[in-house]
């Protein structure tokens, strides 16, 4: 597995992106709306490090309570893997607990992602590597 991005919750995605650009990041594309998660999402990169800005679009978004809890802050690491099923089984065998079933992520070109929680390292996302 290789690190793909750091997930970062933000209350105002436009303002956050502007600030990260001032910090040296380049925005990969304009924010897109993820209907399933009711959130706006974009990616920025600097020096080989990618961050994902995630902004709940309404109080009904599953990210809204997380933003309330964490404020504007990084809250997960995403790892890219060649085999999503195998990686899930490996994490589960090591005590990671699944948070959501695998699902397509529009902001990642429809690639499937899965979220796991671990008491020692927090929230981890897996994304299958692009073909």
């Amino acid at each position, binding site marked *: 597995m290789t690190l793909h991005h750091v997930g970062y919750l933000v209350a105002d995605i436009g303002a956050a992106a502007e600030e990260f650009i001032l910090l040296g990041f380049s925005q990969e594309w304009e924010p897109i709306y993820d209907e399933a998660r009711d959130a706006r999402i974009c990616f920025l990169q600097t020096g080989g490090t990618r961050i994902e800005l995630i902004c709940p679009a309404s109080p009904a978004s*599953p990210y809204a309570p*997380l933003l309330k809890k964490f404020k504007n802050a990084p809250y997960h690491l995403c790892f890219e893997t060649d085999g999503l099923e195998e990686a899930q089984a490996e994490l589960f065998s090591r005590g990671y*607990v699944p948070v959501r079933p695998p699902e397509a992520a529009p902001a990642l070109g429809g690639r499937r992602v899965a979220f796991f929680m671990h008491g020692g390292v927090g929230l981890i996302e897996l994304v299958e590597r692009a073909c």
Partner: protein
Amino acid sequence: MSRSEVMAALQELFRELFDDGSITLTDATTAADIDGWDSLEHVNLIVTVEKRFRVRFTMDEILSLQSVGDMADLVCEKT
């Protein structure tokens, strides 16, 4: 352990985990009914339930849990 005993133990566990002594569980109780029961606390809840009842859920079982009733049924199956 009877199902009513499982429900009573779950209620005690919920009250402690969510620091709310007024929580009253029913089979239909879901995350929407409990303040603070978000996706991250759900994971803490699963781990706590597994320890309390000395059971181990599979990935599919964890992902299929929708309500307290589902959780009680699953615990009863495994104890």
